């Protein structure tokens, strides 16, 4: 076995050992050094390739027949109606404007509606009202920790179908959005599956958490763990959290919601 054969073998199948490889490593310092490097590389590779799996893929496998039917319904619905708004949902975004403002403005309202329709009081309270407010905030911030990667600026814009499939189980609908949605998945928070979205707002990414069964007494501000945001009552006994890295990004989402639906958060 010459060095080239040795190298091919060690670098293509490092776990494969043979007498021939062992003998070559024993007799040739260059081969021995390469084998050591290959072993170190494997350790580094295993560490570097380690990827944690999102909660949605750890949850039980969904009822596929029901999901299939739901997705068929969603793709058949080209128009989502709300009490005051009829916003055509774009099935496909025009190529040239894939990530440009006009592309997502057509989606207008999703989050704005999700957020907007559920707002009961426009005033933000700095105190945490109601039982468990601080615990709720702590839980949300803790949840965001491992998912920080989702809060990076991104040019990804998820399909309406994808976002709808995440919102639907929580009873929320997509009617408009203040920006492209780069991340949408169901997460487990407080033992409940809740939609977790990231909107790419003008001033940066903002996380939206839709909590159908988490009641709050009134709007409450979040200022914890380097995050800022707001939790608002939503729907019938639920709430929505809007969380960002700075007030500018939150403000951008708030403003986009306000501009779209004429409401203030």
């Amino acid at each position, binding site marked *: 076995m010459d060095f080239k054969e040795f*190298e*091919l073998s060690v*670098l*293509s*199948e*490092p776990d494969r050992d043979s007498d021939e490889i062992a003998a070559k490593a024993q007799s040739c310092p260059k081969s021995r*050094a390469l084998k*050591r*490097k*290959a072993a*170190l*590389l*494997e350790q*580094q*590779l*295993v*560490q*570097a*390739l*380690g*990827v*944690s*799996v*999102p909660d*949605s*893929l*750890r949850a*039980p*496998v969904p*009822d*596929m*027949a*029901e*999901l*299939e*039917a739901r*997705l068929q319904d969603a793709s058949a619905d080209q128009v989502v109606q709300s009490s005051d708004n009829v916003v055509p949902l774009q099935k496909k*975004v025009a*190529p*040239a404007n*894939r*990530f440009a403002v006009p592309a997502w403005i057509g989606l207008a309202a999703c989050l704005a509606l999700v957020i907007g329709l559920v707002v009961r009081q426009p005033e933000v309270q700095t105190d945490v009202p109601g039982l468990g407010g601080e615990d709720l905030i702590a839980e949300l911030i803790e949840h965001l920790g*491992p*998912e920080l*990667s*989702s809060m*990076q*600026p*991104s*040019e*990804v814009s*998820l399909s309406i179908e*994808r976002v709808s*499939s995440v919102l639907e189980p929580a009873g929320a609908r997509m009617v408009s959005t203040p920006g492209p949605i*780069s*991340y*949408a*998945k169901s997460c487990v928070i407080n033992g409940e599956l809740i939609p977790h979205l*990231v909107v790419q707002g003008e001033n940066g990414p903002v996380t939206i958490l839709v909590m159908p069964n988490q009641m709050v007494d009134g709007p409450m501000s979040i200022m914890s763990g380097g995050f800022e945001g707001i939790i608002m009552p939503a729907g019938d006994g639920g709430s929505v959290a809007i969380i960002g890295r700075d007030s500018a990004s939150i403000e951008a989402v708030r403003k986009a919601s306000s501009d779209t639906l004429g409401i203030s958060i």
Partner: protein
Amino acid sequence: MQRTASDAARQRRFEQLVGEHREDLYRYAYWLSRDSALAEDVVQDAMMRAWKSLDSLREEQAAKPWLLTIVRRENARFFERKRLETVDIDELVGAPTLHLATEQNTDTDDMRAAIFELEPEYREPLVLQVLLGHSTKEIAEIMDLSNGAVLTRLHRARKKLIENFDLGEG
């Protein structure tokens, strides 16, 4: 929706075949797409495609490579769509978003960056081998290559990594 006994049996079969592989499918999709959100989408779409063609899977032992092939195709479809939409793929994945199981450290970050820089044809067999534990023969089947081609790619992948990465060895 009326649920029949055969629907329930099909769902059970799907859960048994697919459930245990979902995490590996995600990891594979992640390293193919280099983006956590995209990977999740790819897996969700692949799950639905697998559900629809479940009856075509004859041998239960072949479930994992069958699923990996579906994920691979879904990923390719996704990137093909992106190409049609004239998006620069490098821009799209230029800033990788990571969901890491391991603790952050500089060596790991550097290695990760080096892996990200590998061409997909070198990165993929490496992921299948190191992360998912597939043999050369299995990788050849999944990637539709000869055994020799897989060995060559694995060799080149590691050689590039060794060249581009300081392993602290003289």
